[in-house]
């Protein structure tokens, strides 16, 4: 009896070996935890509740987009199982949710987790577990650090890239400018300021004639603007979140100061900044962008935006297409789908990072024309191009070429 068993065992082993060697598609399939023949499990952490709950719309847009992909047959025949948890914008909760996703739900990767504090809290954990922390939803520059953190990657242009682009523009068009800067005294403000100084290079010390910082706890930043005006600067770089940016725009006009005004992209929203500050006060302000604005009529007949509008109408009717978060969620979800398509049947975590760092001239059509997503083994900043725009009448007008600036963290 034992002999028969042995022979049977040897036979079946040989058969299995034969099957494995003759069918190449079986041999090539490689999976890590979270991926199977039928499913790819993706984790996500969003502030659905708490102080930043307005951003929760991004996660809901992504869920709707993945559902649409699944309904159309999935990616290479695999359905996306999107597990999204709420961290209420609290770092300790984010750690708990990240551990739940990795250890309990066993996802293949964590995608587009939102917020600088939350992502900072889980970065070390994700990298020690070697689970991709892909396309994080924050603009901090530190996510582009493939040497220290090879499992973390950003998506949107980082803050330093943006001010570097302003610096390039200033050096080219106003080489003798005297620059006054106001910045919010936190990681975001300091990141922007560093980009400006790096962009100006050696001339930074002589060109920046005045620097003022403010705390978000201050009720008004008017007194800082008055101080900056007294420096007689002819360029004003405005690094502030929406509420303060609106104050600054108003105050500059009130004082009769007429500098070339650069406004950071964070506050470029017409609805929440420019309109409250007054259209007449905002004429000729310069800013930069990388996405098409859904409230801008010029994209009404644009094929890319039409696809987005159709998606919103059919798959996510409860979402507000004018909310910037829906455009971001749509774009970043498309980028992930592209990465997973590139992975083919090799759905290991290592290959996911390899393919994420191998995006060449990829475009989601909600990006401005000419802007492309490019990554490489030492370039973990997917979008590093922006286009300048000037405020005319009641909307932004794009001008000039698409400008690149790659910054590492």
């Amino acid at each position, binding site marked *: 009896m034992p002999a028969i068993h042995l022979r049977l065992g040897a036979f079946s082993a040989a058969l299995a070996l034969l099957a494995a060697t003759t069918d190449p598609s079986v041999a090539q399939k490689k999976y890590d935890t979270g991926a199977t023949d039928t499913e790819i499990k993706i984790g996500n952490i969003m502030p*659905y*509740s*708490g*102080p930043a709950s307005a951003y*929760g719309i991004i*996660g*809901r847009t992504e869920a709707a987009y993945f559902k649409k992909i699944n309904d159309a047959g999935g990616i290479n025949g695999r359905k996306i199982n999107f597990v*999204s*948890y*709420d961290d*209420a*914008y*609290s*770092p*300790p909760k984010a*750690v*708990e949710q990240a*551990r*739940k996703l*990795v*250890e*309990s739900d066993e996802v293949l990767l964590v995608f587009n987790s939102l917020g*600088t*504090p939350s992502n*900072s*809290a889980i*970065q*070390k*954990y994700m990298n020690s577990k070697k689970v991709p922390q892909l396309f994080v939803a924050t603009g901090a520059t530190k996510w582009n650090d493939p040497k220290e953190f090879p499992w973390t990657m950003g998506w949107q242009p980082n803050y330093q890239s943006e001010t570097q682009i302003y610096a390039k523009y200033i050096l080219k068009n106003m080489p003798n400018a005297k620059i006054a800067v106001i910045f919010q*005294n*936190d*990681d*975001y403000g300091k990141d922007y300021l560093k980009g400006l100084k790096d962009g100006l290079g050696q001339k930074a010390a002589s060109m920046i004639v005045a620097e003022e910082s403010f*705390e978000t*706890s201050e009720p008004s930043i008017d007194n800082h603007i008055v101080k900056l005006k007294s420096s007689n600067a002819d360029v004003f770089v405005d690094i502030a979140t929406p509420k303060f940016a609106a104050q600054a725009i108003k105050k500059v006009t009130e004082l009769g100061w007429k500098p070339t005004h650069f406004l950071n992209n964070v506050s470029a929203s017409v609805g929440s900044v420019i309109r409250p500050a007054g259209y007449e006060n905002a004429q000729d302000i310069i800013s930069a962008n990388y996405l098409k604005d859904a409230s801008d009529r010029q994209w009404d007949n644009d094929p890319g935006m039409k696809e987005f509008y159709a998606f919103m109408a059919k798959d996510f009717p409860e979402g507000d297409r004018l909310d910037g978060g829906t455009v971001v969620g749509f774009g970043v979800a498309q980028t992930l789908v592209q990465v997973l398509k590139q992975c083919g049947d090799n759905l290991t975590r290592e290959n996911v990072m390899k393919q994420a760092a191998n995006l060449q001239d990829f475009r989601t059509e909600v990006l401005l024309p000419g802007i492309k997503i490019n990554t490489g083994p030492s370039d973990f900043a997917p979008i590093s191009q922006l286009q300048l725009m000037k405020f005319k009448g009641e909307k932004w007008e794009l001008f000039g070429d698409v400008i690149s600036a790659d910054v590492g963290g």
Partner: protein
Amino acid sequence: MSTAEDIVTEAPAVEAVPKRAMTLGFGTSLVVLAVLILVPLFVKNFIIFQLTMLLIYALAVLALNILTGGSGQFSLGQSAFYAVGAYTSAILMEHVGMNYALTLPIAGIVCFGFGFLFGQPALRLSGVYLALATFALATAMPQLLKLGYFEHWTGGVQGLVVTKPDAPELLQAMASWFHKSISQDMWLYYFTLAVGIAIYIASVNLLRSRSGRAFMAIRDNEIAASAMGVDVALYKTLAFGVSAGITGVAGGLGAIAVQFVAPDGYTITLAIQLFLGMVVGGVGWLPGSIVGSAFIIFVPNIAESFSKGLSGAVFGVLLFLVIFLVPHGARQVAIVAQQLIGKLKKN
């Protein structure tokens, strides 16, 4: 003579009520302890991490319970003390290179001092006014942590990353005899459990001591207490100090478990959660702290599984149900259970 005898025999009975009401029976305590010790041996690391957080928040809720349940003072500022404890531990570990276990008593002492000092002005306030003053403290704390002056130490908005400790080598060697290994999570859990038990026993004894009786006398009637010779000002500030000190230790443990401190982790939301935990667990009933802590950790997850967009509303409904059905929290449930068991025994 008989009346005098009555008084003599009655006196200890009167005194014993708050004692028993504050704690669990000896047998029940052992069962709870055995569960807490055994469960981590059978679950995944992630669950162990959640249980560690459960113990840590339970400590913070216990601290608030001593303050509110013991001395009758309200505080919505516990998140501030928790933050100070967390930052003290994190800074000592990362900048000074101190052993994690040593940072905890320091965090406790720093917070005790901080709480004691805050208790001084708080003396003039009572009830809702005191709650508001502590609320201001909780709102101010995240911004203070971001201040440029401290940034070199606190890491500003970016926060500080803390290294998670391994189990001591001696223990690891012992575990390897049994062909087992002790993960970081498991070690931290038992470490937290040991600290938690020590603090729990100390707290129970504190409330049974002279100081504890003084706290309760102040809670029940301040004027009567001072007429009996209790130094109201001293004991009120002392209660604040002790509560802040324990919260600080909890904060330090929290920093080590989460491996990260940042101002956004210690907002007013945390203070309200701790307050909620205390009410759900039963005000003044120390064992309820762990039930309250379980409520604030697990119920939001349950609420989220019902509906993402409405998780806050679902949580609100659940909270409402709990407060409506059992206004005295876990304590009430425990009493009902005790009565039921008593009846069963009789039958």
